[in-house]
């Protein structure tokens, strides 16, 4: 894609992100309950004390003014103080974000590795045993609630078979020196294979739990789009050219069939973040999802606000990346 076009697409993101910011801000502002009162609820505070806190938090200003200062601060990376941690929200989130990204990436990789080959095989052997098994399996994958499936996996592999750890992201003894915050990358950077193995062992069950519904959906999308592509004239022509079956499937068919898969994968990656809250809670994963759940319970509004905004921005950016990928797969979009 030409740089000018890339810039244009990036500029398109600005109004979207602004809209998202407005909605997040309004949602938090219009939620019943005054944060100042909630914070002081158990401390027998006088109305004067509440008013003073409201003033400190800027809650006595008008909505537009508060919005402007919220946006202004957010642009500088300042999301206020986490009421629970007594530290800047941005720092608390930055600490938890790598674990969530690592888990989401692992889930995405798991989903793609399972979904694409299975979808292709199911389409090629349409109506065969593998196709039927995959179709039934994907129904389970979509229908099983993550918290239940996660607990099931824990019971089987961690509690009964004792093959994998029960919770957390790494055992204390294997903790690598922090460089990036990503445990797998830090393990590699410090050359500690024991850390890498330990981190991957912790990663496996939550990644499978989080990735399974996505794998199920992507499998169905890949299968359907592969079936569609295999009917096309250019596949017949490729066969008439005497190419190997492998080349026809892997290059001629799959490159076209992956377009819908990429789109759906992007949307699903956005929603991985939502699923994270459940899975991170079940597996005691030290990520953003669990932090947000905890923060909601203690009414830690600034943190929830920043996290929701982050989710929304990520969602938009992931879809932007999908658009870029699209141009690689489909030359007609390339201009």
């Amino acid at each position, binding site marked *: 894609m030409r740089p000018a076009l890339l810039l244009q697409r990036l500029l398109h993101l600005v109004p979207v992100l602004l809209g998202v910011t407005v909605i997040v801000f309004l949602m938090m502002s219009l939620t019943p309950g005054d944060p100042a009162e909630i914070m002081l609820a158990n401390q027998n505070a006088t109305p004067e004390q509440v008013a003073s806190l409201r003033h400190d938090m800027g809650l006595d200003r008008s909505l537009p003014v508060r919005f402007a200062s919220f946006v202004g601060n957010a642009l500088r990376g300042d999301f206020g103080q986490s009421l629970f941690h007594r530290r800047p929200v941005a720092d608390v989130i930055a600490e938890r974000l790598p674990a969530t990204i690592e888990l989401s990436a692992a889930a995405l990789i798991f989903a793609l590795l399972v979904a694409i080959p299975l979808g292709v095989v199911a389409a090629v052997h349409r109506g065969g045993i593998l196709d039927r098994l995959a179709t039934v399996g994907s129904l389970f994958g979509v229908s099983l609630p993550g918290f239940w499936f996660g607990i099931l996996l824990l019971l089987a592999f961690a509690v009964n078979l004792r093959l994998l750890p029960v919770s957390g992201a790494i055992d204390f003894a294997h903790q690598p020196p922090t460089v990036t915050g990503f445990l797998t990358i830090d393990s590699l950077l410090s050359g500690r294979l024991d850390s890498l193995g330990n981190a991957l062992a912790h990663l496996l069950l939550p990644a499978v739990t989080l990735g399974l519904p996505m794998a199920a959906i992507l499998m169905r999308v890949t299968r359907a789009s592969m079936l569609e592509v295999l009917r*096309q*004239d*250019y596949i*017949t*022509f*490729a*066969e*008439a*050219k*005497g*190419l*190997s*079956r492998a*080349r026809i499937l892997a*290059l*001629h068919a799959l*490159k*076209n069939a992956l377009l819908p898969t990429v789109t759906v994968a992007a949307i699903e990656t956005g929603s991985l973040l939502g699923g994270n809250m459940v899975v991170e809670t079940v597996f005691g994963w030290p990520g953003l999802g669990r932090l947000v759940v905890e923060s909601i319970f203690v009414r830690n509004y600034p943190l929830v606000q920043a996290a929701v905004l982050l989710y929304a921005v990520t969602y938009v950016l992931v879809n932007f990346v999908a658009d870029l990928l699209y141009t690689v*797969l*489909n*030359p*007609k979009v390339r201009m």
Partner: protein
Amino acid sequence: MTDHPMPEPLLSITDLRVAFATRGGLVRAVDGVSLEVRAGECLGIVGESGSGKSVTFASVMGLIRPPGRIEGGSIRFGGRDLVGLDPAAYRRLRGREIAMTLQDASTSLNPALTVGTQITEVLLAHAEDLPAGHGPRRRAARQRAIDMMRLVGIPAAEGRLDDYPHQFSGGMRQRMMIAIALSCRPRLLIADEPTTALDVTIQAQVLELIAGIRATLGMSVVLITHDLGVVAEYCDRVAVLYAGQIVESGPTAQVIAAPRHPYTAGLLRSVPVLSDLDRPIQPIPGQVPDLVDLPEGCRFLPRCALAHAACHAAVPMRGLGAGRAARCVLAEAAP
């Protein structure tokens, strides 16, 4: 046609039967077709949609897929029977010795791959005289691709290898498909409706191109079409198909001058003639019969103005001398 003895035919199809299993019953798409293609000649195959002309040559290419099945007969090419040939041997044959172009180049070229990829892959799959080593092999294949693109009249061929099909005009795409089909210099080209998808002005260019390359490379051509005008212009011999059977065959000039089957005559009457615009166009009344439930007798009987008592019994192909034959009780050998 000349009188010297006929050389061994390049392709000879004997009593070919192809059926498709459908919910409504077994569709006998090709029902006892026999024909020959001699070295260097151009054979025209004429028939309406559903007459079995494309299915016959998809069988030659080994591209009949379930629910379709070759039920019987033989397809001899270059001295060996292709029916039941193992898939690997068939792959070596397709694209190298027998090539095929499809009706619409805009759907037959893969939209996600450059034309360079699509033409060199045939050479890389089949050509035995390319130099050894990855790099030299690729370069030689590219050079040969450029030569072939020049041969089919694509301007500035070397600069177009990395273009995608959508960057070509309709006529250029058709030329590109022909270049791909001919890249390994096959002995037989099957051109399935090569002009149907094109503008009238470009149709003639593409047909002239095929005729020119046929002379240059000395290959045989099967021209599948529903246009008798195209056959008259470019084909040495013609075979007319109706409802899965050949109803008339012979040297083009004689068949067109004096058709011996009422269907051929009907086809000729339904074509407007520029030199005689006063002559009314007469469409053939009725419809092609249902291929599931065919009567034993002549398949054209319900639409024939010359119907006869003898037409209700099975009508064999009758040799009429001078290389002509017709499937009609009224056809008599010339005295």
